[in-house]
């Protein structure tokens, strides 16, 4: 017994030591490329593209998918370990700052310029998915999956003559797809009928990572607001009067949402649409394919529209989507092989295939083609949206800035704490403190 126990213990100890000794495996032949992405349908489409690549070149492409809620943590961990588990990564736009300043991404400027990739994608996507810092002309990612917020709505309700007449009688203008946030608010109010289980609109409220900030930004940007001015100031910027109005409007929209959406993101949006509770929902275009399937009983009467305009006619949509970046920790042969794939992937006909599979291409020509625009009921709205997307911070401090933003927005919108002015005042102070501490503001 004694011997056995001792032996077992020694064995365990040896195992620990042995494992700790084993470093990361030595360089391999490049017969396989690994791409990391979140777990969702577009990643499956990318795997199809990868299969096409294997058929063309013999190099196997594997898309490793991690659930969304886990993706950033996983990537952060891999970065910390300077890991080489992936060659290419389809990363969120706000990661670029970290990826660049902390050295996880390889600069692709020369590669993209030399291969005429820079001009092949829409300027907005190139800027938000690939460029760091803004305006520097330095690129670190190839815009892969374009995405932004849009709205889905119930045409059967909007085009019902009785509803149209009642709406016009009440609000003095015709019921149609809203042009402005004020109209959207009216329509949401109009369709909010708790007694018959119908609610006007559903918007993001989740606190976990960035959801409520994303949702609110659609209104916030359109009201002419920004997260910081040119000198990185936030005081008086984030809490300007227009922003307070924007937040009040977002809160109103939340009040027209179906009950139970206190911590909701894209899945809950689609759920409340398919179970008939919401007349309009905000969501990323990437999640609209589900509404175009039999899961949605209103499939044939579902329409899509772009973000409405603010009071001064400004129009913005919060950016989702990801660009593809190259891991800086892999060896040069693997880097070269990965770049070969990128070059192949960026070709117009491959991008066309990508769009056919269901990916949201950022290629200008493909986006503008008649074929693409009529492929699905939402592609036209998507192509339009891609011209006015806007994103939040992509500086390395975004995580710190995001946390108080999520708290403040969720606290006011969902829990009804304080006023919009108070919420944004507190937020501005907190963000200011973070920016001062990290040296972004001198």
């Amino acid at each position, binding site marked *: 017994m004694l011997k056995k126990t001792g032996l077992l213990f020694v064995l365990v100890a040896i195992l620990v030591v042995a494992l700790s000794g084993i470093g990361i495996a030595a360089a391999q032949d490049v017969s396989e490329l690994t791409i990391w992405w979140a777990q969702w349908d577009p990643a*499956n489409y990318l795997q199809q593209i990868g299969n096409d690549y294997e058929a063309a070149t013999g190099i196997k492409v594997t898309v490793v998918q991690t*659930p969304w809620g*886990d993706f950033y*943590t*996983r990537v952060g961990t891999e970065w910390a370990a300077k890991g080489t588990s992936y060659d290419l990564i389809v990363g969120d736009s706000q990661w670029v700052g970290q990826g660049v300043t902390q050295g996880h991404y390889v600069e692709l400027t020369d590669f993209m310029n030399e291969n005429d990739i820079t001009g092949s994608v829409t300027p907005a996507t190139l800027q938000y998915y690939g460029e760091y810092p803004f305006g520097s002309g330095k690129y670190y990612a190839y815009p892969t999956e374009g995405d932004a917020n849009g709205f889905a709505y119930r045409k059967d309700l909007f085009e019902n003559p009785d509803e149209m007449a009642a709406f016009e009688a009440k609000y003095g203008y015709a019921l149609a797809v809203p042009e402005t946030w004020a109209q959207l608010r009216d329509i949401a109010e109009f369709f909010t009928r708790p007694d018959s289980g119908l609610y006007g609109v559903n918007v993001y409220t989740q606190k976990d990572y960035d959801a409520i900030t994303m949702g609110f930004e659609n209104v916030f940007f359109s009201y002419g607001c920004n997260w910081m001015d040119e000198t990185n100031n936030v005081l008086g910027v984030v809490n300007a009067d227009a922003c307070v109005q924007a937040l009040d409007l977002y809160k109103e929209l939340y009040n027209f949402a179906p009950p139970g959406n206190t911590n909701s993101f894209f899945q809950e949006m689609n759920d409340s649409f398919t179970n008939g509770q919401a007349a309009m929902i905000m969501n990323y275009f990437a*999640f609209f394919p589900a509404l175009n399937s039999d899961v949605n009983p209103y499939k044939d009467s579902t329409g899509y529209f772009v973000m409405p305009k603010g009071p001064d006619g400004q129009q913005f949509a919060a950016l989702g989507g990801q660009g593809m970046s190259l891991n800086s920790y892999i060896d040069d042969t693997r880097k070269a092989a990965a770049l070969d794939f990128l070059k192949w992937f960026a070709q117009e006909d491959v991008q066309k295939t990508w769009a056919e599979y269901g990916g949201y291409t950022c290629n200008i020509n493909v986006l503008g083609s008649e074929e693409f625009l009529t492929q699905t009921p939402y592609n036209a709205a998507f192509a339009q949206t891609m011209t006015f997307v806007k994103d939040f911070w992509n500086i390395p401090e975004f995580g710190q800035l995001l946390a108080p933003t999520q708290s403040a927005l969720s606290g006011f919108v969902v829990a009804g704490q304080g006023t919009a002015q108070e919420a944004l005042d507190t937020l501005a102070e907190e963000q200011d403190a973070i920016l001062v501490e990290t040296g972004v503001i001198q």
Partner: protein
Amino acid sequence: MAAQSSSSFTPVNYSTRVDKVGTRPMVANLMRAIIAVMLVCLTLIPVVWMGMTAFKPLKDAITVPPKVFFTPSLEGFVNLLTQRRQLNGAELDQFRQRTDLNWADQIALQQQQQIIGQSQFVSQLINSLIIAVTSTVLSVLFAVLAAYAFSRFHIPGKDDLLFFILSQRMLPAVVVTVPIFLMYRQVGLYDTHLGMILLYTSFNLSFAVWLLKGFIDEIPTEYEEAALVDGYTRLQAFRKIVLPQAMTGIAATTVFSFIFSWNEFAFALMLTQDKARTAPPQIPLILGSGGVEWSTIAAGSMAFLIPVVIVTFAQWRHLLRGVTFGAIRKG
């Protein structure tokens, strides 16, 4: 259930008690039984609801108001175990023409999806099993030894040491995760089975040592003394006399350790990615392409619950007796 017979009493205990003689205790016991059964039903509603949701088609899981009656479907389980992709118009028609689809493909097709492989959940369940079983065995083994030593030998600073061991259980997972994360990254234990096994073993140990020491304390030392005088060695005495008598305690400790390792979430969330990822962090992350896949989540929860139920029910007599007689009483 509620039917009472005198045989269900332990006669010795009550025979001399004045207040328990006559019909009153019968009525009181009946009442008690009825209340207890009602409480059990109330307690189990969420679990039953989970079981029902697992067999609901996705649509029925989110109806307003909630549906109690529905046509059972295996959608949740198919979605749990497979990876699928959405089919678009042309492909869909093509798929609908096909006749070579099996039942799982059919279910996927009803959601306009094509099965393209096995989901990660299967391997995560296997990871859970490997990690939970190994760490349970190790922690019970180490704990029995340590508990025996603490119970029988004079160890300098014993009380402090024991308190130290127990106090390990007080550390919130999130508190120790950061340094363990750094340490594991250094030595290559991050996202490995061994790393998780060592971690769970050490966390289980603190509680296991305490629990088992209580049991071993209860075993009269006279038996061992006699055995030692009879020429047994310490180890023989330990193996042949102490261990058999401590079986109940060992069983109870096993159950507790297994439940902890099996259900643990925070460490697994932060210290594993995919090679050693266990099921708990994955269940709330099960997402479809559109809505929250409640049926799938429920199916996953059910699949995940089964081993614990098996272990617990196999051991429940030990578990109850274990805690009942386990007397952490004589400190």
